[in-house]
């Protein structure tokens, strides 16, 4: 059952790169539950889409699991309080994934309870529609980072037939080990969640994709009866379209969604959240976060309540090393640099990464020497250097023709670029301008 056994049939996609994994910093650290902080800042904008509308005001007392923000549109979710306590303020505050956003600041009195829905011991006694409704009401969103509302992914428009569910245990971002630990320590729940998702979608034989650098996780999941798809260690193996390509050979159409090719991909952390929602009757209020990097004294994996400030996580992980320069929400390839560590953990925070000066990329950029490495490596098979050049000269139409909108900003091109060019930045700028121009035309 070792990784070696799989070597002959590991699947992958074309392109990609091999950044050092750096996962051994935290991969052997078991998940440790952190107590909720004195003050919890619950963001109302944790999911992709419209922020939830606040349901509480200053002075209100709330209980754990109580809905403090209601769903506000189709692509939106309700938000729940991870603690019992008193609302201090409803205000805009700095966020780890955007400049700022609405939040509810709560003074913690207790972190007991949280069971606000009826626990369903036998999920198959309920209809798929009921399960999906529960997943929506519990505020479950993608825990891999993009935070797309999970119930939307489970509700394909009529005519779209879903035949494949891939559970994403790839965790291709360097440094991060939260999903790895979750599979090792709570494998049963992960598999139960996968079965619930498959049931909701009407899909037989769901699979779980894991990179072969986690042989213990592959072995464990297989011993629990899951069908594992071993995948080559290559970034970005866990990107949705690349994972689908590797496993099914189907290409998600440009500008389309996985459900256009009959596939749904869900993160292993999402599966766990689904189990909590359906079996335990608890909304999504906590998650596993890897606190790591050589800028951290004691890298760890923590189970934390949403709304806990990054600074608390770092303190629990032994504090910063002396040469820390950069703090990131997420992994090093796609994560977002933070100005302050006074930002709350959100449902999509898979990691809090503190990079030392030796690890962090330098900002010096030199002209493109047209080596073509980015073209060879782009997992979307674009020509990043050419799009970036169009963007530099503000030739937005040309950038669009070159496929700028297909870029998912995975960072592979910038990573391997010998000239240290911020290709992702140029291409993202082109995307914004192209979309703005289209809006203007329409």
């Amino acid at each position, binding site marked *: 059952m070792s990784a070696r056994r799989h070597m002959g049939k590991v699947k992958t996609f074309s392109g990609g790169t091999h950044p050092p994994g750096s996962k051994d910093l935290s991969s052997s650290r078991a998940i440790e539950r952190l107590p909720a902080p004195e003050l919890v800042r619950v963001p109302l904008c944790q999911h992709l889409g419209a922020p939830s509308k606040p349901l509480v005001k200053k002075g209100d007392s709330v209980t754990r699991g109580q809905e403090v923000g209601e769903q506000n549109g189709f692509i939106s979710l309700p938000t729940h309080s991870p603690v019992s306590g008193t609302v201090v303020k409803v205000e805009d505050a700095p966020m780890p994934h955007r400049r700022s956003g609405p939040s509810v600041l709560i003074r913690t009195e207790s972190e007991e309870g949280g069971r606000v829905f009826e626990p369903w011991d036998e999920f198959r006694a309920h209809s798929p529609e009921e399960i999906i409704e529960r997943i929506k009401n519990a505020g479950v969103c993608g825990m891999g980072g993009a935070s797309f509302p999970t119930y939307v992914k489970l509700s394909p428009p009529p005519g779209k037939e879903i035949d494949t569910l891939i559970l994403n245990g790839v965790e291709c971002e360097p440094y991060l080990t939260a999903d790895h630990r979750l599979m090792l320590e709570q494998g049963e729940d992960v598999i139960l969640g996968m079965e619930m998702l498959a049931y909701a979608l009407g899909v037989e034989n769901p699979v779980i994709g894991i990179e072969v650098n986690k042989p213990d996780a592959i072995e464990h999941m297989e011993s629990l009866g899951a069908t594992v798809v071993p995948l080559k260690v290559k970034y970005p193996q866990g990107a949705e379209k690349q994972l689908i390509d590797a496993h099914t050979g189907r290409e998600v159409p440009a500008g389309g969604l996985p459900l256009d090719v009959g596939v749904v991909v869900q993160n292993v952390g999402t599966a766990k959240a689904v189990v909590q929602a359906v079996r335990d009757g608890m909304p999504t209020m906590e998650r596993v976060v890897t606190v790591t990097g050589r800028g951290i004294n004691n890298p760890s994996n923590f189970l934390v309540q949403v709304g806990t400030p990054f600074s608390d996580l770092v303190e629990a992980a032994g504090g910063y090393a002396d040469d820390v320069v950069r703090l*990131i929400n997420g992994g090093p390839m*796609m994560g977002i640099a933070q100005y302050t560590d006074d930002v709350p953990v959100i449902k999509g925070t898979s990691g809090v990464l503190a990079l030392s000066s030796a*690890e*962090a990329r330098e900002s010096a950029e030199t*002209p493109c020497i047209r080596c*073509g*490495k980015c073209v060879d490596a782009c997992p979307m098979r674009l020509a990043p250097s*050419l799009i970036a050049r169009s963007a530099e000269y503000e030739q937005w139409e040309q950038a669009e023709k*070159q496929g700028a909108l*297909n870029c998912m900003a995975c960072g592979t091109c910038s990573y391997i670029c010998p000239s240290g060019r911020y290709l992702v930045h140029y291409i993202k700028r082109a995307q914004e301008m192209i979309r703005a121009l289209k809006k203007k035309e329409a």
Partner: protein
Amino acid sequence: MAESRTFELAMSPHVEGPKTTRKVMTDVVIALLPAAAAAVYFFGLRALLLVVLSVAAAMAAEYLCLKFMKRPVSFALDGSAAVTGILLAFNVPSSVPWWIPILGSAFAIVVGKQAFGGIGHNIVNPALLGRAFLVASFPVLMTAGWPAPSGYSGGTWPTSGISQERLAEIPGADAISGATPLNVMKQTFDEEGMETRMGEGAPERVREELSSPSTYWNLLVGKIGGCLGETSGILLILGAAYLVARGVLEIRLPLSYLGTIALLGWVWGGAGWFDGDPLFHILAGGVLLGGFYMISDMVTTPVTKKGRIIFGIGAGVITMVIRRWGGYPEGCSYSILLMNLVTPLIDRYTKPRALGEVRQDG
């Protein structure tokens, strides 16, 4: 609650790969060292002097241009100017006066590179442009005298690659003893002229000699006349293998180029159609130098895989047209210069099909 602190902001990704422009250029320099050593071995210390002068001139020109344009002068040390300097020196015969590589390198950098905006922005290979400038300005110095490699006592070393004993068997062969292999090959295309000078049946005999194992051997080790860098085939291949292993040279470029040369060498590189010698056409002249080290200039070659193949085939066709029907014995450098010009166009029309993209044109 822990005290908060602040950090630097930056765009993702937050880590960087191992390669830098400087490392890439250093790899190219390392790959060129064996051939440079061969040049010194065969042509003496004068070859070393020419290389050093050329590199120094290229870097000085780069520095002065950057200074004049108020750009960071650190670019002069990124290794790209040094590569241009070496390549230019590799493209001159060892007999040229000392100022030739200086003039050529300076022209290559100032007109071929900095005038277009410096590293990354030049349209054509600067070293090849410098060479073209020298050939056009000083044709006699650049092509007339092909000094034989040193190390041979007892007269002139046969720069044609044909061994001395064999040459003695060909009546009137003195006419070709001082020429490069491609000069000799070119002469055989004029069968009547050669027979007039060297007697009946001479073209066949010469062709036979050019395709003999001993000639191949001389071409491989470098016992032939020619420019500094194009003597030793085996060391050029060695350096190229290093570049491929280091991921600096994308194998599609040299394979498509040399493959086309071999194919067309067979098709029209001999006396009639389909009886040429592919191996001779690859080993002789500058195609190993050009096919590995000029084509590996990333700035002036396509970034797409398909584009690189088209570039190699195009340059191969042009090289062989010049070799067979052109006014020069060798067409390597012009073929690459011409293909450099269409590189942006090639890139444009070989855009890879994006994942999930449906071709508009079917």
